[in-house]
């Protein structure tokens, strides 16, 4: 009997403790969902500095890239209000904005006496923070200014008197020449990643755009199987002949490894890799790699933009404090500190900052690439579209389908996806 009584008491105690919320108003606190890695690291440091200055306690919760999107979307959909600020990869932004999960920032800026975002931000970076793209309302601020770059071995280009790769034809000629003449040393002319999904699509889009391809027409109908689109995929498969075997399953790591080991002469890549080439413990190619904007073909070359944005969920209970931190963290002074940790900025003044340019000689090329960059098609269904498109690109590159078959099947699959979204 005593047992029953004590069990009941215990149960009651648990219930009482569980229900008793702290009646004191909590001091100001912010919680941020961030990407783990160098981008999130910089934000964490900024949070510590901000806390010392203002006394606002900031908790930074880090997630790996593979989980961040689902954590944020599940949380915002469930309206738990767990996060006051979230880091977003720019292709995710349309999903969040379309579902109306983010706070519009302009009214918050106006309260602070600003009409809109600082004009020092790169236009292309602010454009991906707006919904609809470029013209719509502002729902985020750009924190890390990534865009694709073209990497090539300038020592080999000089050795074989090749001209800097300005067009995809130049790239093909150079890949051929280098592979033929350097074949003894196990050198490949080009390295790309064609694993299904994000990898294949990221390496294909710049070729696709340069060849005049468009994923959707003005009415939103998929148009990847136009003659331009098929020609672009044929070209990609042709470049595959100069890429290491197995590239149809490569991801960023394998591409990086080939460049670091000095076994490939060119690739499309993201700025995060630049620093690694100067690390003697990893790199066999110190000082040998040049970075430039993407090659063109029928159209001028355009990179995919891949900025990290910071937004305030609609469910945040501390939107004004969150905005204060967001504005502070994206000031030139704070972003400069993030840049010194290796994150490309989103501000023109920082890309031109003499000290930063001395440390990162690729900055002028990065700025040109970012300013002329293009976002991935802005649709809330991007993840599904990218997945389906990537499967067919990978199939063409692994030889399972011809480029024309792949593009026709991809187009049919994209039509189904788009139709479902309507």
């Amino acid at each position, binding site marked *: *009997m005593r*047992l*029953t009584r004590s*069990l*009941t008491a215990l149960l009651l105690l648990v219930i009482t403790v569980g229900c008793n919320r702290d009646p004191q108003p909590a001091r100001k606190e912010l919680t941020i969902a961030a990407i783990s890695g160098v981008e999130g690291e910089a934000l964490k440091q900024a949070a510590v500095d901000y806390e010392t200055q203002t006394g606002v306690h900031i908790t930074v919760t880090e997630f790996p890239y593979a989980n961040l*999107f*689902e954590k944020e*979307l599940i949380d915002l959909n469930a309206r738990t209000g767990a996060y006051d600020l979230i880091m977003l990869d720019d292709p995710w932004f349309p*999903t969040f904005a379309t579902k109306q999960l983010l706070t519009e920032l302009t009214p918050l800026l106006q309260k602070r006496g600003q009409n809109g975002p600082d004009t020092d931000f790169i236009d292309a970076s602010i454009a991906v923070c707006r919904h609809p793209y470029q013209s719509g309302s502002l729902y985020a601020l750009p924190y890390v200014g990534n865009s694709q770059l073209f990497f090539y071995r300038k020592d080999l280009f000089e050795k074989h008197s090749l001209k800097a790769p300005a067009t995809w034809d130049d790239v093909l000629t150079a890949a051929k020449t280098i592979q033929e003449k350097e074949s003894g040393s196990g050198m490949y002319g080009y390295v790309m990643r*064609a*694993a*299904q*999904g994000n990898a294949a699509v990221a390496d294909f889009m710049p070729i696709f755009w340069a060849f005049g391809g468009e994923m959707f027409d003005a009415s939103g109908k998929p148009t990847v199987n136009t003659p331009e689109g098929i020609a672009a995929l044929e070209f990609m498969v042709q470049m595959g002949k100069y890429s*290491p*075997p*197995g*590239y*149809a*399953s*490569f991801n960023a790591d*394998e591409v990086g*490894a*080939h460049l670091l080991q000095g*076994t490939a002469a060119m690739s499309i890549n993201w700025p995060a890799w630049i620093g690694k080439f100067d690390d003697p413990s990893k790199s066999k190619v110190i000082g040998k790699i040049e970075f430039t904007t993407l090659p063109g073909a029928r159209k001028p070359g355009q990179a995919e933009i891949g900025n990290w944005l910071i937004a305030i969920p609609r469910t945040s209970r501390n939107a004004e404090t969150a905005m204060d931190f967001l504005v502070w963290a994206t000031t030139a002074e704070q972003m400069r500190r993030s840049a010194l940790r290796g994150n490309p900025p989103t501000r023109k003044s920082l890309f031109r900052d003499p000290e930063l340019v001395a440390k990162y000689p690729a900055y002028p090329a990065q700025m040109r690439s970012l300013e002329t960059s293009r976002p991935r098609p802005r649709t809330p*269904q991007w*993840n*599904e579209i990218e*997945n*389906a498109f990537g*499967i*067919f690109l*990978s*199939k063409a*590159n*692994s*030889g*399972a*389908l011809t480029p024309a078959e792949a593009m026709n099947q991809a187009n049919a*699959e994209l039509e189904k996806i788009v139709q479902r979204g309507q």
Partner: protein
Amino acid sequence: MPNSRRLSNAASRRHLLLPYVLVAPAVAVLLALSIYPLIYSITVSLQVGDAWSIGNFTRLASDNFFLTAMAHTFVFAVAALSCEFLLGLGLALLLNSQIRGRGFFRATLLVPMMLPPVVAAIVWRLLLNPNFGAINGTLKEIGINTEALTWTASPSLAMMSVIAVDVWQWTPFVFLVLLAGLQAIPQEPYEAALIDGSSRWQTFWHVTLPLLKPAILIVLLLRTMDLLRVFDQIFILTEGGPGFATETISLYIYRSAFRFFDFGYAAAMSFVLLALTNVISVVYIRLLRNESRA
């Protein structure tokens, strides 16, 4: 209990309540963690947008990705199960006999099974890397042209590679269960067979195999259920690629739910997989029950 008669009515009532009080937390946890999500996922699978509909289930029939992923899952399960069973049975028979060093072999054989599947998959991804991997490195050393051996990147080899890794990791489990089964068989039937003058093959076929049947059915049932829901190894080794060559149903379910945020469709696919797994399990269990009656 003679004492209980002397207890007052109230006390005896409390006495009767005690078991319920003690069981209540477990039932509550079970309700919260199993039953509620199950019912919830059924309702989710029956919604498209915000409306009630069986659209998620009708869409399955016209979804090439779903049908192909299903086919891959069965190819993978059948191939891996056959290899694991034949190898596991062979090893169990071998190590059940009195060979030298069998303790050592038994212990080492279990190592792959001890590794978390994710770790095993990462190890194999490195081994199978066409350019820097140890397997192609070794083949190159002994003079074999490895140019075409892009294990996880070629549509024809990728499925074989993921099957091989599963066989490597889970044959030990089959072996372990069958070995335990073999050791539980009494000696008498063998003595009788010996006296009757049966050959080794006849002994195996008419004595060992029938007596081992319960263990065989159990291990086949467990492996089939595991193989049909394979996720980690394939996700790490190929992520379903190249193209779609190794995409199994659980990878596609994962993608639909957490990448495309289509929980309704993902739930519908899960229920189809659950139904198929159930049908197969029922067949196994029927066989097992018939066996125990015989």
